[in-house]
């Protein structure tokens, strides 16, 4: 028995190596948002408060991980990139209400949960990008089904959360049957199978593969900042759809406090910081999004795209129709 000493030893060594020694002044974040966006903010926060921020970045499966970790989860704050994920976390009972004067002052009612379990940090529009060669056009999302755009539309996967949320808003407006018809017609208009990212669609417009694409607002700003991608962005207009009726579909990025947050005080401090005017300004500038806090202006570049009317459909309604949207996308075989 004692001769096979190596295997148990290795296991024990590994266990030891994996133990995290908890320090006091820390806050732990599970983030769907990308490092380049949130790290500058966290650095500012640490500078101001002395509280160290630990982050896990993930795109998938955060809810699953939190569920499995349960009451021993080290997570304090969750950062997400769309409303549906926040609602999913809430539905699974993984959040707790967070309240402070700062939060209640900073975030308008339509951008937070009624029970204070989640707060929006920024908003982003699902824009329609169009080739400059077409000239200026007033688009509605409904126009994407128009036969005159046959073979001229590009988009990323319909199953991407940003597109699913848009389809959910269409269901809220038109009902399931009409939305399915719309999806089928849009699919028939696609220049190619849904693929790539929102930026790749703008690249395709630049290369004349298509004329129109769906894309979030901030990608436009970020492409203009990138030396390679500026060329693509220069070929398109960013359009705010449905300006003469319900307004453009808007989604949010948001934050929430984990149900079993071990560092609650620090977590609240971080939340307060993230909604503060300087942080809102910085968050919005870094990723070209619209700050949620009233009075904080978006970056000059974003402001230059002009004022727009946003669809005032409640975020909860969008999340509610998410599953129906997925079912319709399957029925239309949108990605196939």
């Amino acid at each position: 028995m004692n001769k096979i000493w190596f295997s148990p030893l290795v296991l024990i060594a590994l266990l030891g190596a994996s133990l995290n020694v908890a320090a006091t002044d820390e806050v732990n974040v599970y983030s769907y948002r990308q490092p380049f966006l949130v790290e500058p903010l966290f650095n500012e926060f640490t500078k101001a408060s002395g509280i160290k921020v630990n982050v896990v970045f993930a795109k998938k499966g955060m809810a699953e991980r939190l569920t499995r970790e349960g009451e021993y989860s080290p997570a304090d704050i969750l950062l997400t990139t769309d409303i549906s994920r926040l609602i999913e976390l809430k539905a699974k009972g993984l959040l707790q209400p967070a309240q402070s004067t700062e939060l209640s002052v900073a975030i308008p009612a339509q951008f937070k949960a009624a029970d204070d379990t989640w707060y929006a940090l920024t908003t982003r529009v699902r824009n329609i990008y169009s080739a400059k060669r077409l000239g200026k056009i007033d688009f509605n999302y409904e126009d994407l089904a128009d036969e005159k755009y046959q073979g001229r539309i590009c988009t990323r996967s319909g199953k991407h959360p940003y597109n699913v949320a848009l389809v959910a808003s269409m269901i809220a407006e038109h009902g399931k049957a009409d939305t399915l018809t719309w999806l089928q017609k849009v699919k028939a208009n696609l220049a190619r199978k849904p693929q790539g990212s929102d930026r790749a669609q703008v690249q395709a417009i630049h290369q004349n593969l298509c004329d129109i694409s769906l894309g979030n607002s901030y990608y436009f700003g970020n492409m203009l900042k990138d030396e390679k991608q500026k060329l693509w962005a220069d070929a398109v207009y960013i359009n705010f759809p449905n300006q003469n009726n319900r307004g453009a579909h808007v989604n949010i990025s948001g934050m929430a406090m984990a149900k079993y947050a071990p560092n609650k005080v620090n977590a609240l401090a971080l939340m307060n910081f993230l909604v503060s005017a300087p942080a809102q300004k910085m968050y919005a500038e870094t990723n070209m999004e619209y700050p949620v806090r009233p009075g904080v202006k978006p970056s000059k570049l974003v402001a230059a795209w002009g004022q727009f009317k946003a669809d005032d459909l409640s975020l909860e309604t969008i999340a509610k129709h998410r599953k129906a949207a997925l079912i319709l996308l399957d029925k239309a075989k949108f990605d196939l």
Partner: protein
Amino acid sequence: MLAGNKNTSWKFFSWFFALALMSPIVVMLLGSINASSDLFSHLWATVLPEYIRNTLVLGVLVALLSFCFGVPAAALISQTNIVMGKQLRWLLMLPLAMPAYLVAYLYTDLFDYAGPVQRLLRAWFDWQSPNDYYFFDIRTIGGAAVVIALVMFPYVYMLTRTAFEQQDRNLLRASRLLGCTERQSFYQMTLPLARPAIAVSLALVTMETLADFATVQYFAVSTLTTAIYDTWLGYSDFAAANALASVLMLFILFIVIAEQRARAGQRHQSSRPNTQHQRKQLSIAQQIIGSIFCWFLVFAGFLLPVILLLVMVINYADYPQFIALIATGKNSIEIAIYTATIATVIALILALFQRLHQSRSRMIPVQISGFGYAIPGTVLAMAMLATFGPLDHVINDVAKALGFTAPGLILSGTVFAIVFAYIVRFSAIANGTINAGISQIPKSLDLAPASLGVKTLPAIFRVHLPLLKSSILVAWLLVFVEAMKELPAVLLLRPFNFETLSTQIYQLISDERLEQGALGAILIVLFGLLPIIILNRQKDNP
């Protein structure tokens, strides 16, 4: 042959490790019990048939292409005198160092309508739109199959070449004496004798393909893994996702069984490998054509992607990127070293148990411990969470009951979970390599030490391990390379503030900003090259 108390402890450890590696799979199967039939009937009525068809077509195409790339290359290198054969012998292994998702991204980017190749063609010929010319569509099942085969064929090449080279030269002589031409004896003797090796390698390649998600995603090809992701992340139906993953497992089980059937009863041990056999002398034209075929594989599977990365590095890399790489690179290497070491040790224990133990069930631990290779990385990560989460809770509850402070999550969300997941996933590779090595050791050596009165364990250290030295090294290196490249499991299981080279590249790729991660990508490739260089040196000086 293992006697006394060692007998039981060896047995205990073999079963312990095998069952531990099997546990996430069992958890996955159990998790599928409550799957809702509503979602299934919806999927079945809409997209699932096409997903399944795509999965099957992709699996068959990749296997077919890997065969067409790997077997002729193996034959040309081991049986003929093509131009630069000596260099190509190891150059053909290089594509193994390339992560499939990276090559997929580079190729889709290169041959896409908006990519440089088509842009250049349009500029030359003044074409304005896609209607003006024909160009193949890279984002199709065919495109995906070609690219996956380009990075996977080296498995087929390596195993088949080894099989060719280790065939008994007396058999070949006999076939020639019986009047076979060189060609006849190759097709009727050499090739059939290599069947087991070809079957194993094709099974590995197909399993890897079926379990893939990231690569096919770049090709906009929806497969069964797409359905698993949709049900889990879209419909938030964990049980249904588990059920679909179990279906995928069945597919793969079928491949494993088919592979074992295909080589049932075929045991071609040779004590006289034909290393100095007469190579077929080709005409100059044939030598050049053969060489071009092999060079094409090296170029498409390795050189071209590396050149594309290097161009990005030259244009975009800067000092801060390099500094950032040191920490992430260290994480990648550490995890890969842990994984390779433990997987190899476990493979040794299991393989020696199978060889030396007399219990009737001795085959089972090796077999069940290899199943993990068939599970997509993300599904495995979910299964790990489902396995270790509850375990962590038990540990904490017990600690609290005993009056200690709860230690927190010591298994899930730590390096332990990542390494464990990797071992589950890559044990099949270590097992296969070590078993192949052990089967080369004559059975008589198992008995010799006992007859000389030496105990089993010292005998293993003095007889078997030295003879297995090269297999151990190969197993360690292959697992190391795979662990460096692995992506989905680490994405979901990693602890706080923990980046690896692969997570960083993935992040940048998803933003179309690979150029800023090109330096890291080159680093993964370089580390992937190390083992190949070492392997090659070792083959040359045995």
